[in-house]
């Protein structure tokens, strides 16, 4: 079982600033939710609580202790909200690698054993930060009844930093020309990254081609659709003989001829309830869909599980000789905006895409839906620009060449690429990502079922002259 701590960069910086504010030891807490899979547990840092002078019984250069009341309050929250707890403290005197002292060793084990009995659900861990900024983190393994090191800490901002970095025996030869730019460490980071691409169409198949050639470790490709003849102008790896085959399978067959990337092809709608368990494995998600309901869902996944989401889209309008064409790359990271903050999801389209058969019949009967909808124009060169811009920002996010731009727009007519990163801001009142919403809530909140949205069968029957008052049909005030 691998344990990972995922922390937004802003929280991690605030934690460090608090713990290393002076030469005295300081204490802080990270409250975390959990994202659990069979072989991995991610602790998603949701809140940082700093112990101020009034919360400390004492603190000196060689030790610090909390007042009982304050610690009890934190434990109570952990229990009530099922949030895991990581107690962090500093060793400001140490300018080398951080290590737990003998006192830490003795106290942590005892405290962890006690807390895990009192609060059985959430996990309990500790962190020590040295004056050098180096840190160690560990967690209580309930089965083994001992503290074990957390395998990796991911600090996610406009770059993803992992500590400690992993490197493996690796044949750099196929990547040697890009290693000249990223360095071996950049290549190692790519090889240690699992990504999910949702939508393997015109943009998604180009993104998939690029990430496989870059040498990412694992690609989870999700698309329910099959290849049609009209896709062949833009679908990477598809030939006329592939018409009728699943897009994800076609891409997998194509990429396995040249790539070492492990590819998992999933031919299913991303809205299928079982798929969240697969998507949770990703460290970066590419949203390459042309529908709004999956975009809404993936935005929720990104916010809830602190997984960076790279949303790619193109748009072409042709009317009476007038042409407008372009696209955009928008990146949702834990510290930044989500798509809902910037009105980046068409809410009415979400409703339309999720209509039940009965709703569609009702609208058609009333004359609101007429005939077939026309497909939008789609050209490989425009898709290629947007896919390239998106993958470039992915490289920046993972390899850290520079900070990723979280909003890039491309206008095909004026041939301009504009970074809108500074203009796109997080909305603190955003319904989706505000602090008390689903942000970093992990497995604590289930997703609504968008796959088979149903018509309720328990609505009040006024034809039968139903008496009011809740009763069998409804809860009333």
């Amino acid at each position, binding site marked *: 079982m691998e344990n990972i701590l995922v922390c937004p960069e802003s929280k991690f910086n605030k934690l460090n600033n608090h713990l290393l504010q002076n030469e005295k030891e300081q204490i802080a807490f990270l409250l975390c939710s959990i994202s659990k899979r069979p072989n991995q547990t991610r602790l998603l840092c949701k809140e940082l609580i700093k112990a101020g002078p009034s919360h400390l019984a004492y603190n000196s250069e060689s030790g610090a202790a909390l007042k009982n009341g304050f610690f009890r309050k934190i434990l109570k929250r952990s229990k009530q909200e099922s949030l895991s707890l990581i107690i962090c403290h500093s060793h400001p005197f140490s300018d080398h690698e951080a290590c737990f002292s003998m006192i830490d060793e003795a106290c942590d084990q005892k405290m962890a054993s006690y807390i895990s009995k009192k609060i059985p659900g959430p996990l309990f861990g500790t962190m020590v930060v040295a004056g050098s900024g180096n840190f160690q983190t560990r967690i209580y393994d309930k089965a083994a009844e001992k503290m074990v090191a957390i395998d990796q800490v991911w600090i996610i901002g406009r770059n993803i930093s992992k500590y400690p970095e992993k490197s493996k025996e690796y044949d750099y030869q196929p990547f040697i020309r890009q290693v000249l730019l990223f360095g071996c460490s950049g290549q190692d980071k790519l090889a240690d990254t699992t990504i999910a691409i949702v939508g393997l169409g015109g943009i998604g198949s180009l993104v998939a081609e690029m990430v496989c050639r870059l040498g990412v470790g694992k690609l989870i490709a999700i698309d329910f659709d099959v290849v049609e003849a009209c896709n062949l102008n833009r679908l990477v790896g598809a030939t006329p003989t592939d018409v009728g085959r699943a897009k994800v399978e076609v891409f997998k067959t194509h990429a396995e001829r040249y790539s070492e990337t492990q590819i998992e092809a999933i031919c299913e709608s991303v809205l299928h309830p079982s798929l969240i368990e697969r998507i949770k494995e990703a460290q970066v998600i590419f949203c390459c869909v042309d529908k709004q309901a999956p975009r809404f869902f993936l935005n929720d996944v990104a916010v809830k599980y602190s997984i960076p989401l790279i949303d790619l889209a193109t748009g072409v309008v042709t009317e009476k000789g007038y042409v407008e064409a372009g696209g955009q790359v928008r990146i949702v990271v834990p510290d930044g905006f989500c798509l809902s903050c910037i009105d980046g999801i068409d809410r009415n389209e979400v409703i339309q895409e999720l209509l039940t058969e009965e709703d569609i019949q009702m609208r058609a009967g009333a004359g609101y839906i007429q005939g077939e909808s026309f497909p939008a124009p789609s050209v490989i060169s425009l898709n290629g620009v947007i896919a390239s811009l998106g993958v470039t920002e992915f490289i920046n996010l993972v390899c850290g060449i520079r900070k990723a731009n979280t909003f890039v727009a491309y206008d095909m007519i004026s041939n301009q690429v504009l970074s809108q990163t500074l203009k796109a801001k997080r909305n603190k009142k955003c319904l989706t990502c505000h602090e008390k919403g689903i942000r970093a809530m992990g497995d604590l909140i289930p997703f609504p079922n968008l796959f088979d949205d149903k018509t309720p069968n328990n609505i009040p029957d006024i034809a039968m002259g139903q008496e009011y008052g809740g009763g069998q049909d409804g809860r*009333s005030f």
Partner: protein
Amino acid sequence: MKREWIRAEAYLLTRRFRQVEFDPDDYLWVHIRDFDLPPGFNKRQSGLLIELDATYPFTAPKNCFIDRDIRTSSGESIDHYFPESSQNKFFSKGWAWLSLHIDNWKPNANIIGGDNLLRFCDILYLTLEGLTKQRKEG
């Protein structure tokens, strides 16, 4: 989370309406029994059933239904109102579908700070008021 939201919204609705109930299972509808109709209709009040998607409150309510015998006070039918069975999935339960398209639905982390069901009721009232005026002017 949706459960708490709908409960809070229903509670908010009780500040204006006396009789409010909601779907206790999946939180897919809210029923107001005493929705005031604007002047110009054959009734003073109607029942109002608001159907919510799984994506609510991110998206606006999906459908709304009112009593099946609503007409203008001069006896004319109203636009976008479908009491017939072929255009109305809750016909058998006595409801008529009123098609109401809402643009710019902007909910907020704070229920009363953004669009909500109370505001939806305001929009519905204004829409119905507009429909009777259209009839008069027409």
